[in-house]
């Protein structure tokens, strides 16, 4: 029998029992959609968590245990000589405040010192401008301009904050500040200690040449000032002017941290192993991800397992429908066998029918699942925000359906549909011709 004729044969039978087949397809659809939607929660939450972890960190970064561990120049050289290490980046943080003055505006920010050649090799591109080439050139954080406020701005922010507070929300001041480009602008900078913020050092003049990219977390306000390592002495001298006595003898103005960067993600693991072998305490965010992935793998397998139970329940419907179909058509099967249809063909025709139910059910289920997933990602944050009064849900993905999930679910439900059609199909092949032909119309 030609394949096309087999399809026609199956479709004709399905048409004859539209309602029954429809109900069975419906059950299969519900089972499969339940499986996909349930498992999509695992996939969605995993994606959200991963994004949360990776959004503010470079995946190629290898952190050094203790953070502020000091490396000697030899150690840095040793680490840099490890294969596929891009750079060992030293970042120095100043433990004092820097007050910037520009036109009638001012702001307070932290200061970091770094080697911009190293930094440029691993960092995301600047939002604007270039890295410093001269000693009095600096780069500022993405929100530096926004935090440069004058009297009028401060008043406005106060008003808006009050209004927001009355509504139970929070205003971050994004509408105020200096809105034009800061590139090429000169600012004056004075240092003050945390203990006595009012006492300012003599002002130093710097030129802004670059603006850092927007930070990964949307809610972070980043207005740091980034200078060359060479500015360390200048800053130290300024700080001496404002230092409060010699209160704490163990006070250190500068804290250094070293971060190791791999050339790309796949080298992180070997570098970690190598460095640990050499006795360095190092770790990477990707290891956290590994643990997270194992956790989510178990979760997803569990959810798929529970979802499969729904598919199995639906398969009872398919089994019943197919058994009925075979019983109903006993005489027709008898005639087919009498005129020479092989048992194999008869089995195939019935298997095709149950497979058809499985395939249609799965296709519908996939479409419905995407709709449900889309709707829940859209509506759940709104519902949760209304219920809890917090506004932290909008960047959480509750449900995600990657193609792998579609493949897994389709395999399970079509497979189960075929298996549940197997016994009825076998039964059809076992029908005895004469017994069947004796049945009257």
């Amino acid at each position, binding site marked *: 029998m030609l394949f096309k004729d087999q399809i026609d044969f199956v479709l004709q039978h399905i048409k004859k029992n539209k309602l029954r087949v429809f109900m069975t397809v419906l059950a299969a659809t519900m089972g499969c959609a339940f499986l996909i939607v349930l498992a999509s929660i695992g996939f969605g939450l995993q994606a959200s968590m991963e994004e949360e972890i990776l959004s503010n960190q470079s995946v190629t970064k290898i952190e050094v245990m203790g953070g502020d561990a000091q490396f000697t120049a030899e150690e840095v050289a040793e680490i840099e000589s490890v294969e596929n290490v891009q750079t060992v980046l030293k970042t120095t943080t100043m433990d004092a405040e820097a007050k910037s003055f520009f036109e009638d505006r001012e702001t307070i920010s932290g200061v970091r010192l770094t080697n911009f050649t190293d930094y440029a090799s691993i960092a995301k591109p600047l939002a604007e401008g270039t890295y410093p080439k001269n000693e009095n050139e600096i780069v500022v954080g993405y929100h530096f301009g926004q935090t440069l406020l004058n009297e009028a701005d401060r008043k406005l922010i106060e008003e808006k904050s009050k209004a927001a507070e009355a509504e139970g929300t929070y205003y971050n001041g994004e509408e105020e500040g200096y809105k034009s480009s800061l590139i090429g602008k000169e600012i004056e900078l004075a240092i003050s200690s945390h203990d006595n913020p009012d006492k300012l050092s003599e002002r130093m003049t710097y030129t802004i040449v670059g603006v850092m990219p927007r930070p990964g977390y949307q809610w972070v306000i980043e207005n740091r000032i980034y200078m060359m390592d060479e500015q360390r002495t200048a800053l130290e001298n300024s700080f001496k002017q404002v230092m409060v006595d010699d209160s704490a003898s163990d006070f250190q103005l500068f804290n250094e941290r070293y971060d190791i960067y791999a050339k790309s993600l796949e080298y992180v693991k070997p570098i970690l192993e190598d460095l640990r072998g050499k006795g360095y305490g190092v770790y990477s965010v990707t290891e956290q991800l590994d643990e997270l992935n194992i956790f989510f793998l178990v979760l997803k397998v569990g959810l798929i397992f529970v979802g499969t139970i729904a598919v199995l329940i639906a398969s009872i419907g398919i089994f019943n429908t197919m058994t009925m179909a075979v019983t109903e058509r006993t005489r027709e099967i*008898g*005639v087919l066998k009498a*005129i*020479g249809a092989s048992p194999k*063909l008869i089995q195939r025709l019935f298997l095709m029918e149950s497979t058809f139910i499985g395939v249609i059910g799965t296709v519908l289920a996939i479409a419905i699942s995407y709709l449900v997933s889309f709707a829940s990602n859209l509506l759940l944050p709104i519902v949760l925000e209304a219920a809890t009064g917090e506004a932290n849900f909008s960047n959480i993905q509750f449900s995600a359906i990657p193609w792998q999930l579609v493949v897994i679910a389709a395999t399970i439900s079509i497979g189960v549909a075929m298996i549940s059609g197997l016994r009825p199909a076998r039964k059809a092949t076992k029908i005895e*011709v004469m017994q069947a032909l004796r049945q009257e*119309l």
Partner: protein
Amino acid sequence: MMIKVNNLQHTFSIGKKGKEKTVPVLRDVSFDVKRGEIVAIVGKSGSGKSTLLQILAGFMKPEHGSIVVNAQEIASLNEAGSAKFRLDNYGFIFQNFQLMPSLTAFENIELPLKLKGMKISERRTRVEMIMKKVGLTEVADHYPNELSGGQQQRVSIARALVTNAPILLADEPTGSLDSETEQDILMLIQQLNRELDLTFIIITHDEEVAMIADKRFRMHDGKLVKDGDHRVI
């Protein structure tokens, strides 16, 4: 010799499990059929005629004995082999026609060709030709329940003929028809036998039907006895 049946033997066991009774239905049945012959097997109800036909057709296996058709032993074929053999060699005509109620006359006749995997264009010409031969052109699109008994039996005969099978097995082909329609069908069988050189084995308890046969056998208590050659024209 087209068909050669030797020492066929078959026993049914009936009744509840544990207290079955065995009923011998065929006892040492042997006969030959030549190409182009019409053979009638007559006998009282319950004498075992249908059982013989079913075994000939391969619907069930005989307990003992051999059936050789066109030099091929078919009593030992497995189910798939037996189905394939039927499709290529046999056409069936049943007392109650056994048409598919959901298929039109045309589609019913087409069915064996579909099983053979014939292409649609070829099927069409072939079915149309056969329908013309048995006089059904007018009712091609009718469903079985829209046809008279005689027309239904013509559809069933057309379905048996359509694959060019050389042997036609008929169990009470006129059993559900009135005597006038019966005459039509018998004439058709004779005509097909003459024109296409088809071999017929017809089971009947109706002596009228047996009259068209070249050769008659009588079934009695599971034994087959030759009735002498005679043909009525």
